[in-house]
């Protein structure tokens, strides 16, 4: 008879999940499942809606990564209407997007992940949280995090209204321009973001990397997972959050595929299991492998580490240096360590901050040319961006009034759902020998 342990809800993770762990009578883990418990049906209830309303509807798919949905949708509209955004519109969109990356990566790092490695996974649930982190690292640092987040969200608010639900985004442009007055404080924020990003990396090194015991633990095999990786790269194969081609590298690091997001259907498959509401994405060209890691797997991961693994480097100079340091420490590419996701996140925040600086200094930022009105509806539009948590694809089809007739969405949590299943089982087996299960 096997015994079942349920962990519900899964906490400090966006999305509604539970974990079921099955143990034999000796208390060894036989099996573990990560189940996603809900479905909302966005792809269906947007049928009949005017396409240009989509950037305002889809952010509600995930309020933790609403900007990526808004952006993927807006880019799908560019495609749908065969239109390029004006240079200024593109700068404004990217400013919004980078500001989002900075604040989101920090909320993820400090609120969701740091409780584990700053306080340790064994800490009491009552203190294993951001408040505990702040108590440990000090009020001053806590205040800095909150301050950077607040100021980045001011930029998002300026461009896209509510940070949890951005409303801007039109085919070929943006609804609102930026003034010289506003540029001033945007610039200050961008500068402070770069400084903070470097500070955060130092903090990570001081607290996490200096902790030998913790480092050994997370670099051990049971804390890693060997899968493929997917992410956007620019034409120099550098990390890009906003546009580019999708590149896939194999578990051993070779390039497996490089494709235009328009071809996503021939590369990405969604597998259906009766025990979870989420569809499990995998590489169609490998064929569904089941929930396994290693050379035979068809599973890939996305997100910060995946993007760094698929790219040849970062797009900005300071981030590039950190990138090199990371792979030196971890012993080359690709890295499969879960810990490296956090490290990669901090490096990406630095790239986003540096890119904010570039945009804040661009003379074109404040031009009034924010809309390209040369719209030609072609009835199919596909938009792809890197959400903070990974590749995001929006695919719409419309009738000749531009009303949605079909929508297909591939979201970041999907790509990672199957790998999470594998890693939950693996870490449960690694840690639960002889019956005690830690909540977490």
């Amino acid at each position, binding site marked *: 008879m096997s015994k079942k342990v349920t962990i519900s809800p899964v906490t400090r993770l966006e999305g509604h999940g539970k974990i079921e762990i099955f143990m034999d009578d000796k208390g060894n883990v036989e099996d573990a499942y990560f189940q996603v418990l809900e479905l909302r049906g966005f792809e*269906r*209830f947007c049928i009949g809606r005017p396409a240009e309303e989509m950037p305002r509807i889809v952010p*509600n798919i995930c309020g933790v990564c*609403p900007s990526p949905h808004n952006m993927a949708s807006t880019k799908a509209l560019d495609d749908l209407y065969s239109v390029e955004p004006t240079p200024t519109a593109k700068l404004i969109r990217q400013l919004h997007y980078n500001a989002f990356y900075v604040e989101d990566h920090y909320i993820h790092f400090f609120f969701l992940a740091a409780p584990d490695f700053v306080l340790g996974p064994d800490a009491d649930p009552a203190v294993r949280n951001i408040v505990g982190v702040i108590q440990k690292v000090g009020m001053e640092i*806590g205040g800095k995090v909150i301050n950077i987040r607040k100021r980045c969200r001011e930029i998002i608010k300026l461009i896209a209204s509510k940070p*949890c639900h951005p409303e801007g985004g039109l085919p070929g442009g943006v609804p609102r321009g930026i003034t010289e007055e506003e540029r001033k404080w945007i610039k200050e924020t961008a500068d402070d973001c770069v400084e903070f990003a470097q500070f955060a990396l130092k903090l990570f090194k001081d607290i996490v990397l200096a902790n030998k015991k913790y480092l050994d633990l997370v670099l051990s095999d049971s804390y890693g997972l060997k899968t493929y990786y997917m992410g956007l790269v620019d034409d120099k194969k550098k990390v890009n959050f906003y546009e580019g081609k999708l590149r896939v590298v194999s578990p051993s690091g070779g390039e497996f595929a490089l494709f235009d997001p328009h071809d996503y259907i021939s590369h990405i*498959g969604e597998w*259906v299991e009766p025990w979870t509401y989420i569809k499990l994405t995998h590489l169609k060209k490998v064929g569904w492998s089941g929930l396994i890691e290693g050379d035979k797997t068809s599973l890939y991961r996305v997100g910060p580490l995946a993007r760094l693994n698929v790219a040849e480097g970062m797009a900005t100079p300071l981030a590039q240096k950190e990138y090199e340091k990371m792979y030196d420490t971890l012993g080359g590419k690709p890295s499969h360590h879960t810990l490296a996701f956090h490290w990669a996140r901090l490096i990406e925040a630095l790239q986003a901050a540096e890119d904010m600086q570039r945009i804040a200094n661009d003379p074109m930022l404040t031009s009034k040319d924010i809309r390209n009105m040369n719209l030609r509806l072609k009835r199919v539009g596909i938009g792809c961006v890197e959400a903070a948590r990974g590749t995001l694809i929006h695919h719409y089809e419309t009738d000749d009034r531009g009303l949605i007739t079909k929508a297909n969405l591939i979201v970041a949590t999907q790509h990672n759902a199957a790998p999470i299943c594998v890693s939950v089982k693996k870490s449960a087996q690694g840690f639960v020998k002889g019956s005690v299960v830690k909540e977490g």
Partner: protein
Amino acid sequence: MADKPKVAICWLGGCGGCDEAVVDINEVILKVVDAVELVLWPVALDFKYHHIEAMKDGEIALSIINGNVRNSEQEEVAKLLRNKSQLVLAFGACACFGGTPGMANFRTKEDIFNWVYRDAPTVVNPKKNVPQPKTQVDGKELTLPEFYEQVFALNQVIDVDYYLPGCPPPPDLVVHAITAVLEGKLPPKGSTLAPHKALCDTCLRNKTKPDKLALKNIKRIHEIEAASDTCFLNQGVICLGPATRTGCGEACININIPCRGCFGPVEGVVDSGAKFVSALASIIDAEDDEEMQRIIEKIDDPAGYFYRFTLPVSLLKKKRV
């Protein structure tokens, strides 16, 4: 610790944006965390439902619940928190009215499942699997919540004491609501903790509205280069301002985008769509029947505008099939 009021924050069918909205009160969050004992907050804290089940009825002073109810688990959690709490605050448009995902009430469960698990172009499903409430995998049973036929607002499942609308609610109103609870300065049960007026009453563009608006054509937002200081309705673009409660600080208007009604109907109005139908009809300028038909015929998807956030609490609630 012992005398601090216990507070639970929980998401049901929400997007997490309402959880972020709590964090968005920035420095104030530290004070709140100091003044209360948080007993549940899945997105940030590690407490589990069994911690709540072990509590006495009414032990929690306040449960802040965001998200709508679309499945059996969400219903159970809502009822659990109701039993353990003195006050329940429906937080955000999803909890108050069903929210954007409430538009799923225009479709059936079957339609959603067919597309998602069968017809979408990326589906690979040789076994024709569909998520099931109970599945046996290698002799082990896995369960999933039951997906309901429709979306419910929170007050259609449990009693709700207070409402805080918005998608998500803005920081000033969040602070205001939490302070009101902590200081015991609450209005009568059932109140919405937001201003009573319509968005148009506070919108700066209102003064550009002529005495009598007269529209010969309704345009869609991408079709025009909207002026940044003129009332959207005056530019022929649908704006839900006349039928929507104010309180968001004109968030969308500020970025030159019309309102879609996330604050729900103004005080005393049940169906924001009905209210907007009357407002819109009155500004359509048609000489005769034919012109009326022509102008109105060209309004694409009125239901999707008028009930963007409120379909489950509208008078007719859901599509009949």
